[in-house]
């Protein structure tokens, strides 16, 4: 006997999660309830994503974990080593080498392919929660496609700020039916959700929900004719690799308040630098 079950979870729990994943794929954007298990890490550490990863991993997989785009945060490192130990999987930081990628708050810059699965850690799966705290009511709203309030909330943004100020967890509509929370990714990443070649799975541990986007699914960010959706980012090139097209973090680099903008996707940035691309702040 091993000290652990393969990928930590017992077989009955994995079967329950696997059934939820299949129903999620069959009803894109709909939140499937599941009985979340205690994991040996706190809820804020993505226990929903961890349970989904545990249910899909095979020993032959190569696993990558990113936290806000970075592979080297405490959270990413500990989830990666958790599955290295409990599932014996190979791990990588290279997006293109990974077969399963667990992520918190980003979609990799490099386009994902058909052999890949992207698992999102989701804190609040219900896009209507801030409008309506009661689960019984939001469930009814989804069943009746009552999404008018959601548009009202976005429109309030416009009247207050002159534009839609929501910049993370920007709501999307899937295949013209369910409004879905894409997890707190920047809205810059929203256009990558649709027509992606990879399978996308979303796990919320505390809220006990799993949802999914099959490959090549139509995903539209909510907007208005006079205020179309914009995938915005800081208007700078990356200081390290010079990329014009990547999502950037703003870093304070010295005591004098000096700043630089650098790719949030560390693998993307490092690969570009290794290929000879250089930004204005690179040594």
């Amino acid at each position, binding site marked *: 006997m091993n000290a652990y*079950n*393969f*990928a930590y979870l017992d*077989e*009955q729990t*994995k*079967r*329950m999660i*696997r*059934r*939820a*994943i*299949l*129903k*999620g*794929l*069959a*009803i*894109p954007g*709909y939140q*499937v*309830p599941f009985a979340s298990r205690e994991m040996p890490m706190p809820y804020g550490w993505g226990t929903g994503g961890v349970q989904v990863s545990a*249910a*899909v*991993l*095979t*020993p032959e997989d190569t696993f990558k974990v990113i936290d806000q785009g970075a592979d080297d945060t405490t959270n990413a490192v500990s989830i990666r080593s958790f599955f290295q130990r409990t599932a014996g999987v190979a791990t990588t930081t290279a997006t293109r080498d990974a077969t399963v990628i667990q992520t918190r708050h980003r979609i990799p810059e490099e386009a994902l392919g*058909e052999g890949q699965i992207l698992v999102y850690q989701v804190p609040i799966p219900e896009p209507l929660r801030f409008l309506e705290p009661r689960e019984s009511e939001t*469930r*009814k709203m*989804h*069943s*009746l496609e009552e999404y008018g309030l959601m548009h009202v909330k976005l429109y309030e943004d416009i009247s207050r700020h002159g534009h839609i100020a929501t910049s993370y967890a920007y709501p999307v509509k899937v*295949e013209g*039916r*369910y409004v879905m929370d894409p997890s707190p990714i920047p809205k810059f990443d929203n256009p990558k959700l649709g027509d992606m*070649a990879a*399978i996308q799975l979303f796990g919320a541990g505390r809220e006990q929900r799993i949802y*999914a*986007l*099959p*490959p*090549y*699914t*139509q995903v539209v960010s909510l907007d208005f004719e006079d205020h179309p959706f914009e995938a915005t980012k800081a208007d700078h090139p990356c200081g390290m690799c010079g990329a014009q097209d990547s999502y950037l973090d703003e870093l304070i680099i010295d005591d004098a308040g000096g700043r630089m903008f650098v790719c949030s996707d560390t693998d993307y940035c490092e690969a570009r630098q290794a290929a000879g691309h250089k930004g204005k702040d690179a040594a």
Partner: protein
Amino acid sequence: MQADTLSGGFADPSIGSSHAFRAVMEAMARPGTVQEISGAVPPAPLSPAAGTVLLTLCDTETPVYLAGAADCEALRVWLAFHTGAPLVGPAECMFAVGTWDALVPLSSYPVGTSQYPDRSATLIVERPDLSATGAALTGPGIKDQAALSLPEVAAFQSNHALFPLGLDFIFTSGDCVAALPRTTKVS
């Protein structure tokens, strides 16, 4: 108890079911693709693929309907031993398994409710063969268009019209598996 009953499970349930699930998930996520699946060896008349799907997804929490020739003593005992799944009629099942002729009419199965469309049956349909030819498929999971050798077309069109309610289908033959979720448009 016969030797048949005790044998035919996964050699290593944890690893075997992880591989089998990935095949089923790829099939469900990419309608029209045919995946290899193996691990279980069920008694006749079930195919290894159908037996493997049952062992991967079923347990005491999932009522199963054995349709037609699948409802035989050897299979009942085998499924009970390996999964503990309760056997029920079509109206109460979460999974059903059998040939297309034995499974129809589709109106017998739960299609979910407007608030819980996931509470719908998944039908495991045994086929003489499976190939990416025949009926044209479009919808989520399919880049432009795909094809799959379906037993008929009209029943899947009516099922698709129920969306977001509806049944989901897993097709099995030998050691191959394919799938058709309710989202797929068939023509």
